[in-house]
Structure formats: structure tokens, C-alpha cells
């Protein structure tokens, strides 16, 4: 069981959250010609530290940024989106 520290609600069980995915992706600017394929499809998929987003659906319904080790499942840091970086 993962315990995620929601910056708005405090520590909660993972079952309250829905996994969103890689939290480091940069959406291309509106009107940009290039970059959409990379943004929609390509992933770094690291074996180790991964910065990701979880949605607190059974709580505040905000996105929470989580830094987690994909090999050990250890949660290293939680915070608001944009606050957690690699």
C-alpha cells in the first residue's frame, strides 16, 4: 500500500487516488507545429526515480505531484504540481 501525502488533505491511502502518469511532460504551445507526438506518445519510463501525477479523486480532486522510485515503490517527495522536480 502506498501512502501519498496530499498537500491539501494530508497523508492518504493510494486507493483514494487515480494515477495520471508522467508529471514532467511539457505540452507544446498552442499553435506549435512540432512536439505533439513526443508529448502524447513518448515517455522516459525511468527504472528508478519518477516524477508523476496522481489525482485525489476521493479527496480534494486536485492533482498531486509525487516523486517515487519505480524499483522500490518508495515515495521520496509529494507536493503541488510544479513543485516536485527530478
Amino acid at each position, binding site marked *: 500500500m502506498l501512502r501519498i501525502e496530499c498537500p491539501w488533505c494530508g497523508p492518504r491511502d*493510494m486507493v483514494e487516488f*487515480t494515477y495520471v*502518469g*508522467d508529471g514532467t511532460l511539457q505540452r507544446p504551445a498552442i499553435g506549435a507545429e512540432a512536439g505533439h507526438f513526443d508529448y502524447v*506518445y513518448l*515517455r*522516459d*519510463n525511468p527504472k528508478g526515480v519518477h516524477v508523476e501525477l496522481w489525482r485525489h479523486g476521493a479527496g480534494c480532486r486536485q492533482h498531486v505531484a509525487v516523486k*517515487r522510485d*519505480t524499483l522500490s515503490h518508495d515515495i521520496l517527495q509529494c507536493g503541488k504540481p510544479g513543485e516536485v522536480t527530478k
Partner: protein
Amino acid sequence: MNDYSVWSVLRGGLTGQRHWKPAWRDPDPQPSYDAIIVGGGGHGLATAFYLAKLHGVKNVAVLEKGWIGGGNTGRNTTIVRSNYMLEGNAHFYEKSLQLWEQLSHELNYNVMFSQRGVLNLAHSDAQMDAYARRGNAMRLNGIDADLLTAEQVREIAPMCDFSDKARFPIHGGLFQPRGGTARHDAVAWGFARAADRLGVDVIQNCEVTGIDVEQGRVTGVQTTRGAIKTKKIGLAVAGHTTQLAEMAGLRLPIESHLLQAMVSEPLKPWIDTVVTFGAGHFYISQSDKGGLVFGGDLDGYNSFAQRGNLPMLEHVIQCGVALMPSLKRLRLLRHWGGVMDMTMDGSPIIGKTPIEGLYLNGGWCYGGFKATPGSGWVFAHTIAQDRPHALNEALSLSRFETGAVLDERGAGPTPGWH
């Protein structure tokens, strides 16, 4: 090495069983090969086997970081089927199923392929309509499919809850009689032995640590047992595809996720087919040892840990008990996790890459086992001819960029939803 046969078993019985030899050699890596397959699971070994057997490429090495059958080949739930709807998938999986039907003879190794049927249950009128559509698409592609009423389902799977109290009453189902199960270790061992007999070097405990690329084409690999030269490299490393591709500078439309499987204590023959629940993700079959083998959905987040979390285990068992209440009294014997390459459209990738001489076979999501012989068959063709076979043209890596994705479920580019 002699063929396995009833005569060799009888002769061995009369001579104290002294005739057994190792099923394949344990060679050291040579300085160079015509082709190198990275990954000694079912797919990699099948590729080497078909390269040697059908394409005359016999100077081949299969490099395995652990031991044969120690990866996802030995972790899956052994189900074989070809009940796909989309054109690009259906013919490929059907080719694979046809290869399964002859595989024990082809390999001279009993893979215990059992065509006990695969039954997908429907729990609403809309789901019956969807299954009628899929069944019709399968039949138009020459694949067997029967749409069953609830009464017909009851004859095949009487252990399901048909009472008024069922949480999700069964409306009917879609049955593929030619589907079934196979012994997964035997598939890896059978392909390893058959490839070895054709001269392929199956090299265990040899981890690839780098891929050498010069001017856009591969020249060899770095391994824990030294450098090896080659002009053709096939990657078949379920779960770690992105890790290997990164060595050659490629980013892929793949995330690695965690899938759990479970087996109960053994019991007498109870279920003689494969049943999948239609109102949640749960599927079940019974192994030859008597254990009920079942599984469900992904844990849902990126992981390379090879071990699952309890909420998903509980969810899968709840689905199972909702469908088959008598499961409640069983004890769980073991559960384990494996790393799945989840692609962005839920279909695998078999084909060429932007790097010349580097071929990719991966992104099997949770459906790689059934494809083992077909995957090796088309991948061997792709490597030998340097172009995909008609059966894997639609499974190219470039389909994501061109928009020709094969999204069987219609879930969109979120790997965890397929």
C-alpha cells in the same frame, strides 16, 4: 542429440534413466554472429528458432541476462487465444494460434497445449451486442467464435453465479473453442532445445550493457561477458524494452507497469475452460496441478518492482468471488508480479527501428504469451529480410507517429488503461 519419443522413454526405463542429457549446450559467446537476439524468453528463442529453421540464418546467439524461462515467460497465466477484432491484430494472432496447434510436433517437445476454449462473459445487453460484433469480425477473418446464451454458458461454466442474487447477472458470452492454455516453462525450454539443435548459441547469464551504433547502424553489443560484433540485433526483452532501446538512443511509446497473478491451493478438476469476467477485470483457469490460476488488472502505476500491492489483490479476488462465490472457501497459495511493457494503444510493436540493423519486438502489454510462436515467426522474417512480413506490417513502431494506431479497446494513449 536424439529425439524425444515414446521409444526413448521406454529404452530409458529399461536402462536406469541414464540417457538424459542437458537439453541444450552452455556455450561461451563467440566474437561475432550474423544476428544477435537479446532476451532468452519465449519470443527471443522462437525468433532464433525460426531464423535458423526457415531463413537459413544459423550463426545466431540468444543473450539472456538470467536463465531461460526466468522472466515473463515463467510469470504469465499461460492463456492462448486469438479473439481479436481489428484487422492488424486478428491475422497475426490467428497465425500464432495455428503455430501453437502444431508446436509440440514442430519442437519435438510437449508444450502441453490444451485447447480447452476461452469464454468471455457478458453482463448486459450492450455487452452482448459488442461481443456479437467482435464474434462476427472474427468469423469474417476465418477465426472460430460462438456467441452463447446464458444457458449455454451455464453448461460450460456451471460454477458461475446464475442466481438472482448475482451482482452482475450473466447475459451470455463469446466463446473461442480453439483457445486454451499451454505450459509456459515448456514453451521456453522447447524453443531453447529446438534452436540449440539447429546450431543457435543460447547464452545465459549474459546481460547486454550497451548497443554499439556507428553512423546510424548497429555494429555490436557490449555484455557482461565481453563485446560481440554483429550487424543485426533483435530486441525481445519484455518489460525492459525501453531500457534496452535507450542504449541505442531511442525513446519509445511505452511505459512499464505492474501486473499480478495468483494461484490457489490445488483442488480436483473444477473448471475445464478459461473464463473471463465481463464486469471487472478477472480471468481464471485451472492448471494441470489443480491450482486455480487467476489474475486481473494492472496495479496502475509505473513500476519495475516485480511485486504487487494489496489493494489490487483484494480487488481481483472480490471480482472472482462476485462471479464464482464458491472461490471464497479457497486459500491463496502464491501471488507474484511481473513487469509489462504497456504501449500507448495496447498492441505490440514488431518491426524495424530508425537505426539500421536494430529490430524491435516489445510492448506486449499483458498479452505476450499467446503470441510467442507467431511473434518469433514474423520477427525472424523481419530480421532476415530486413522488412516486415504482411502479418506484422500494422504493428510497426512508426504507427504512433502516422496515427495508424491499433487500439483494440478504444482507450486512447494512456498505457495503464489497455
